Structure formats: C-alpha cells, structure tokens
C-alpha cells in the first residue's frame, strides 16, 4: 500500500511538473511569460491599466511576503513539532492557551500591511473615477451602447455611428459614456483600463487613454445571455492625423443614399455581383442594419464595413470566407443570435419575432458571395 501511495504521488508530481512550464509559456501570441496576450492585463498600454497593474504588484509583494512568513511559520511548525519515530505515544505537550502580546503584535502588523495596500488603492480609485480635463480641453467623447451581443459606438461630436470597432486618437483622454440597450454588459479593454459595467437605465462613465498608436482586443465581461462568450470588440488607437482622416472617411457616405443602397465606389468588374448584393441587402438586411453613418438601427451599423478588421463583434477576422460563413450560418457562429432567429417581441418573447431573421431567408452560397462583395465595397 505504501508503494502504491508513493507511485501515485510521484505521478501527481510529474503531471504538476509538466503543467507548470506549459501554463507559463502559453503558445502562440498569447504567452503569459512574454505578456503579449491579446487581452493581457500584464501588458498595459495606457495610464489607467499601468496604474492598476502597479497596485496589483503592491498587493502581490505584500501577499508574497505573507506567504513566506505565515506559510513559512506553518511549514516550520508542522516540521518541528511533528511526532517522530520512537516518541512516547502518551506524551502530552505543555497545554498553553495563548499569548496576548503575540496576538496584538500580529493584529497591528496585519493592519500595517493593509495600510501599504490602502494608500495606492485610494489614489487608484480617484484616477479611474475622475475623468481628467486636459489643458487644451480636447476630450474625445464616445457613446458606447451594449447590445446582445455587440457594441455600438457613436461619436456625437462627429455624427458617426459604427459598431464593434472603436477608434480613437492615441495620447488623448477618451471619455466613454456607457449605456445598455437590453441587459447588463461590461466594457473590458484590459490593455488600457479595468472594466466598467453597462447597466440599463444607468449612465456610467469611464475614460481610457492609449500611450501610443496600437491595436487592442476587448471583451464583454458581464454574462449577458446565450452569446456572451462571443461578444468581443476591437480597439484601434491612431495618431492624431490618422484619426482625423478616419473621422472624415467615416462621415463620408459609402452608399449613394436617398433610399439607394448601392455603393458609391466599386470595381467595374464586380458590378453585377455588387448590385445583386445591394438588392439582397435591401431585402434581407436593411431592416436591422443601416449603412448610413448618421443612422443607428437595431443591429450593428455597417457603414464602412469594408474597412473594419473583424466580424461578429470581434469574433472572426474580416475575411471573405468568414463573412460568407457568418451570413449563411449566424446561429453556428453566435448561438441564439438575432440575425438568424429574428429580433424578439419584448412583450411576447416566445412568439413570432418583431423583425424577421435570416432563418427563413434561405440564402444560397451565391447570395452570400454577392452580399460579401457588396459589403466589401463599403470601404
């Protein structure tokens, strides 16, 4: 029996031993040790995330100190006072009941360590909650609305609506007004800042700032229903000039307009496909998706879709095969998705949908390819 125990413990130690380097050196781009994971909090790219990481390290050092001292005392006591072979089995050690002075000292010591954590904590709270007003008064303000299961981004100053990809200038304070359309969501862009919830009926505000231009990943961090796991988003910090150019691009219409959904620019060679795509779009998609950057409807705004980097709220890269798959099988990409099953009637959620989805549209592969061509011409 004893050998069995030793062999089994050996196996357990081996498994543990193998797992440690594997967990620390996670493969691909997301390595823990290299701190380059897409959503890693250990790779701060802005002042808030940096501050939050700094406070984390304070707590880490304090708790590591406690682990060594208290854990060490535990280990030492267990080793030193253990029953040894040959000991008198009836031996009774001194029945001491306590030592008030030691207790008092330990309580005071613990409180002191907490003060070490408390001080940067309170300044961190202020940093996150007090939205700074920069000297030049220029704050970029973006209205973030959480929907099941995508993000609407509105730039009130510029009259732009977009979705799932938030763009802003680097080096500047970006103020986010967080609203929820349906249930509670949470805006988490780990490399720039800790999260804040989007709560229906409540106006939460936060600020972010990227030190340098860059590309970041974010994800909804409050369970919001069937496709919570698939509600990601992308964030792009641009230089000031690039941002100004982006704003102008977004404000420009990519479709002819006045009820004409056909794109302004497209390759002459693709004309048939694109026009077929336009018709299909009007028939099947336009009731939920606007392609006019000034107008927000029930689904993500698709103006300038062709220039976005991701589809389905950050879940798929924006490539033709992915887009085709998304159009034909939204339910397989994001379970419970309204694009497939239709938008439910809030007063009769189990009845016929308020807005029909693609479930009964019976789109063929050629239809999907036409729509892909159309959407990619909306640059």
């Amino acid at each position, binding site marked *: 029996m004893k050998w069995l125990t030793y062999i089994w413990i050996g196996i357990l130690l081996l498994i543990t031993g193998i797992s440690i380097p594997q967990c620390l050196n996670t*493969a691909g781009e997301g390595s823990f040790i290299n701190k380059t994971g897409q*959503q890693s909090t250990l790779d701060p790219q802005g002042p808030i995330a940096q501050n939050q990481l700094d406070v984390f390290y304070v707590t880490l050092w304090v708790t590591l100190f406690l682990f060594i001292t208290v854990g060490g005392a535990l280990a030492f006591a267990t080793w030193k006072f253990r029953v040894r072979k040959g000991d008198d089995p009836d031996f009774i050690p001194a029945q001491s*009941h306590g030592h008030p002075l030691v207790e008092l000292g330990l309580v005071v010591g613990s409180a002191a360590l907490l003060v070490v954590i408390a001080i940067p904590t309170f300044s961190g709270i202020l940093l996150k909650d007090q939205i700074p007003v920069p000297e030049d008064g220029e704050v970029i303000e973006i209205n973030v609305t959480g929907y099941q299961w995508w993000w609407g981004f509105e730039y009130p100053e510029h009259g732009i609506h977009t979705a799932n990809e938030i763009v802003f200038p680097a080096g500047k304070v970006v103020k986010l007004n967080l609203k929820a359309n349906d249930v509670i969501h949470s805006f988490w862009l780990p490399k720039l800042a800790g999260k804040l919830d989007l709560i229906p009926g409540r106006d939460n505000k936060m600020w972010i700032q990227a030190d340098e231009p860059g590309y970041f990943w974010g994800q909804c961090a409050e369970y919001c229903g069937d496709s919570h796991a698939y509600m990601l988003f992308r964030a792009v910090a641009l230089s000031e000039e690039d941002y100004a150019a982006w704003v102008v691009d977004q404000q420009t219409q990519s479709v002819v307009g006045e009820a004409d959904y056909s794109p302004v620019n497209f390759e002459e060679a693709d004309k048939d496909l694109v026009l077929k795509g336009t018709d299909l779009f009007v028939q099947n998609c336009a009731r939920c998706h606007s392609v006019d950057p000034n107008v927000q409807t029930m689904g993500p705004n698709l103006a300038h879709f062709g220039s976005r980097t991701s589809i389905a709220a950050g879940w798929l890269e924006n490539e033709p095969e992915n887009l085709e798959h998304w159009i034909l099988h939204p339910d397989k990409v994001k379970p419970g998705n309204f694009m497939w099953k239709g938008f439910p009637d809030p007063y009769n959620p189990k009845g016929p949908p308020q807005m029909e989805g693609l479930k009964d549209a019976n789109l063929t592969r050629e239809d999907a390819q036409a729509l892909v061509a159309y959407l990619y011409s909306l640059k």
Partner: protein
Amino acid sequence: MSTTQATYGTWSRPLKKTGLVGFLTTVDHKKIGIGYAIGALFFLLVGGVEALIIRLQLMSPENNLVDAETYNQLFTMHGTTMVFLAVMPLSAAFFNYIMPLQIGARDVAFPRLNALGLWCFIAGGVIVNLSWFFQAAPAIGWFGYAPLTSKQFDPDIGTDFWIIGLQILGIASLAGSFNFITTILNMRAPGLTMMRLPVFTWMTLITSFLIILAFPPITIALVELMFDRHFGTHFFNVAGGGKPILWQHVFWIFGHPEVYILILPAMGIISEVLPVFSRKPLFGYPLVVFSGAVIGFLGFAVWSHHMFTTGLGIVATSAFAFLTMLISIPTGVKIFNWIGTLWGGRISFSVPMLYALGFIWMFMMGGFTGIMHSSPPVDAQQQDSYFVIAHFHYVLIGGSIFALLCGIYFWFPKVTGKLMDEAVGKIFFYTIFFGFNLAFFPMHILGMTGMPRRTHTYKAEMGWAEPNFWSTIGALILGVGIAAVVLQVIYSCFKGKPSGNNPWDARTLEWDTSSPPKEYNFGYTPIIKARDQVWENNHGTDLKKMDKIAPDSHGIHMPDQSWWPLVVSIGLFIAGLGVVFHHQTWGMLIPFIGGDSVISLLHITMPGLLLTFFGIYMWALEGPGGYHLHPDPEELKSAIDPKESGHWE
C-alpha cells in the same frame, strides 16, 4: 422502555424507529444529520459532474462539446448546486449531528422543526434540479442578475424553478438556524458557560445568526423577481421605473454573508481538529471566537465589493474597499491562532489532520487573492475574470470542502462506530490536493491574461489553451478524488474496523458518548467544569473532572416522531411546482397526456398550500408529545443520584 404518546385515534404518533417509516418520521438530530449528509454528498457529485462537463468543454479553444445554451445552464446549476445543495447542507449535517452532543443535550430545541429543515432541503434540491428534466435549467448564473432574468430576456421557466427552489431551501436554512440558536442558548449542560463551548458550536451559533439576518434579503429579492416575471411589477425593469442595480444590492447583502455562512462552519471544524492532533488546546480561544463574531458582523458591511465595477462612485467604492480590507484582519487572526496551536505541540498526520493543514494553506492563498480583490483598481481588471474563479474556489474547495472532508474523516468513527482506513484516506487526500491545485492555480494566469468568466469558449489566439487544458486535467483528478472519498465513506460504513468511543483521544464532550451515540445521547446529565471537558477527564486534574448526574426515576424525556414535517414539505413542494408551471400548459408538465389547457394557480398551488396548512395545523394539534426511556445502566456507573447532587436535572 416505557412509552406514553399522544393519540388521536388513527392519527397516533408513529412509533416505528426503523425502516422507511422510521426514517420519514424521524425527529432524531443524528438521523437528520445523516440525512443532510447523504443529500449533500449526492448533490456534491451532481455539481461535480456539471463542473467536469464545463471543464471538458473548455479544454480546447472553440470547442463544442456542449452548445452555448447548455453550457450557460451548466455553470448556473453548478454554482447553485454547490453553494445551496452541497456545502450548506453538509455544514448543516455537522451542526445537526455534532452540536447537540458537544453541549451535552439530548436533541435540539425543536425536533420536528429540525425534520422540516431536512425535508425542505430535499424538496428545494429536487425542484431546482427538476428543471433539467424539462430541458429548462436556468441559464442566468448562480447570482441571476436582472434584467437578464426578466420575462423579456428569459421567457422560459428555468428561472422560476430556481426562484422557487431557493425559497424552499431558505425555509430549510431558517428553520435550522432558529433551532440551533435556541438549542445552544438554552440547552447547554450545567456548567457549560459560553466561553467553555467548543469552537465548532460557537461557529454554529454565529452562522445561524448570519443565516437569519441574510436570508430575508434574498427572500425579498426572489419575491420581487417573481413578481416582475409573473405579476407585472417593475422592481428591476427600467421601462417601468425600476433599477437593475437594486437586484445586485439586495442579492449581495445576502450573498456576502452567505460566503461567511459557507466558511465559518469550516473554520469551526478546523479549530476542533488541530488541537486534537497537536495534543494542545486551541491557541487564543477567546480571540478565535471573537474574530468569528467580528467576521460575521463585518460580513454585512462589505457586500458592494462584488459591485466595484458597476460605477458606485468614489465614496461608496472607497468605503467598501476599506471595510473589505478590515475583514482580512480577523481572518488573519484565526490563521495565526491555528499556527499557534500547532506550535509546541505533538503533531500526528492523520487523514483529518492532513485536510486541516491543507485547509490552512489553501485558505491562506484564497485569502491573498481576496486581499487583491479588495482593492478596486486591482479588482477593475480581475472582476468577472478567471482570477475571481480561482479565488473563490481556493476558499470554497481549499477552504470549505477540505474542512468538511476533514470533519467527515474526524467524526466518522463517532457517527458509525467504525474507522476509515488511514492509508487509503491519505492516497485520496493527495489526489484531491494535487487535482485541486492543478485545476485552479492556472486560473490565476487565465484571469491575468484577460479571460472573462461564464464564457462557453475562447479564441485560440488568446493563449489560453494550455492553462485551460491543464486545469481540466486537474479537475478530472479532483473529481476522481472526491468520488473516491464518497465511495470510501460508503464502504467504511459496512466494512470499517470498530473504533471505540474516542479513537483520536479527542477533547470535546461528544467523544464521551458511545460510538455511535445511543438514541438519547447521554444517559446522565454532565456537569461541566472546564473547556475541552473530555481531555480534562482523561488527562486533567480531579478538580476539573466532569460530574455525572443520573436521571431521576421517570427516566429520560425523548421527543415523539411525527409525519407532519414531511407532509408540510410535500405541500410546499407541490405549491412551489404549481407556481413554476402556472400559465404553462398541462402538456408541458405531463408530456403526451397533458393536453393544451393552461395551469392556473388554483390547480396545483392551491392544493399544495392547503396540504401545507393542514400539515401545520395537525403539527400544532399533536402537541410536543414525548415519551420516557431509561438509559443503559452501564452508562450510569459513577453517576451521582439526582437527589444528592444539589444540581437540577
């Protein structure tokens, strides 16, 4: 044995002590304790299977072992099952079985109310899990945030199963708590002052107060949610003027004390076991007791640390951060005192002791991540990520479950009169220890690298595949370990070697009874002269040895059995089921033959309530009852005749 009983013709009190009738009508705290333990271990395995499916789904990126809807149901049910149907009832099993023995009582103050607690636990557990059979398990998370739980976003009946199940479970917890408080305050043996109570009994008392004060908020919250869903109110519905954040506040005013309800009994068990296997008294007993009370009290002042990311504002966030940091002090005090108990002792590594030492270490680590969460800037990144999952599993498995397993191995000889094999127990301990750490330590890394919780899957690019893979391996090992322990418990019930009354040379009063204790617990009335009375009896001076007063001539008064707690629970079960299914068709409740007509509250709920009230009425009518029996004369050797004792009986 002579007996007298109340009779109403055919409604006489049931007499059979054995068999199915004996079990269904029992009011014996020991049998009820075992009933809680069997139920809890069953649901522990159910919750464990749910966890393993979750872990297998997450083993690789973009996996689809179960679909997203099922996955969302799994994590909801896993959390609900483990909190309400595994840890709480397992704690209740120990409160029930051990506490009366520790205070020298023969049963609890209200034996029939105690039985009601057991049957309501079963009823509530069945209702919550019945949802699986209707393919309508709730998918709302164990804390069911509004407005996701509204009829608009959650039209199916899963949430209704959840609401009603929890309400009935609340009745069970409250019934138990009123009972335990009354018992501890009123039924202690003579000489057993509060400061001589075993720490486990103290934690029973404090936990019971926590339950009484914490369950009303969740009861109210669940009623409000039910009314929003079915009766057109707008507590949490913005369109009607309500506030979703209200749910969070009311839930967490319950939810935070709830986690102390989950851990204080565990700390009580550890405080019993460490002294026994160090052969020294608990270091700093008054401070351990006092810090337990402080934790309980402060536990009501920190609830919004679960809401640091909801935008509470600077003042509220700072206040809750400060109070949360404060609560780590009494917790630390306990850990220091446990180490002080070990210090200078003579430590033997029995299986209960291994779990107790593991508890101190794992709970300490969970406490450290708790300290990290107490700082809002740090929590802003950690909240709703796998870091939180790592934290609470360290304190709930490494803490509560380790302590409850410790309690099982420690008190098994007392409950069954048999020993569990030490060598086998150690193998299972190491399995659980390694499996647990392998499963949950990588989750700290996942949280730090941005993996949110309650996610069906994740993208391969994130770099989360390896920690998730190894976490699943750990979970499988942990699952094997837990299942093995349950099997060892069952096996040892039949094949364990005889243990004797006090195989561990333990210190507290329950070890002075036979193993298992007689139906009446103590043949004599003990007169207590010290803390750790049994230790003083065996190793102390004559001055502190316990006196025993024999019962007087009419014998020991015992409570009669009763059908009515079971009847009341069945009535509540039926009424609850009726609420879940009202406005659904009969065909949904009874497939194939039900038909299309709609169930109204009159069809099922009304009869259920009538049965409940009938049961309560008959319960009141039958009165306390009771009979007398005479104890085994062997036990009364060296007992003092009551007439000469100068003490009351």
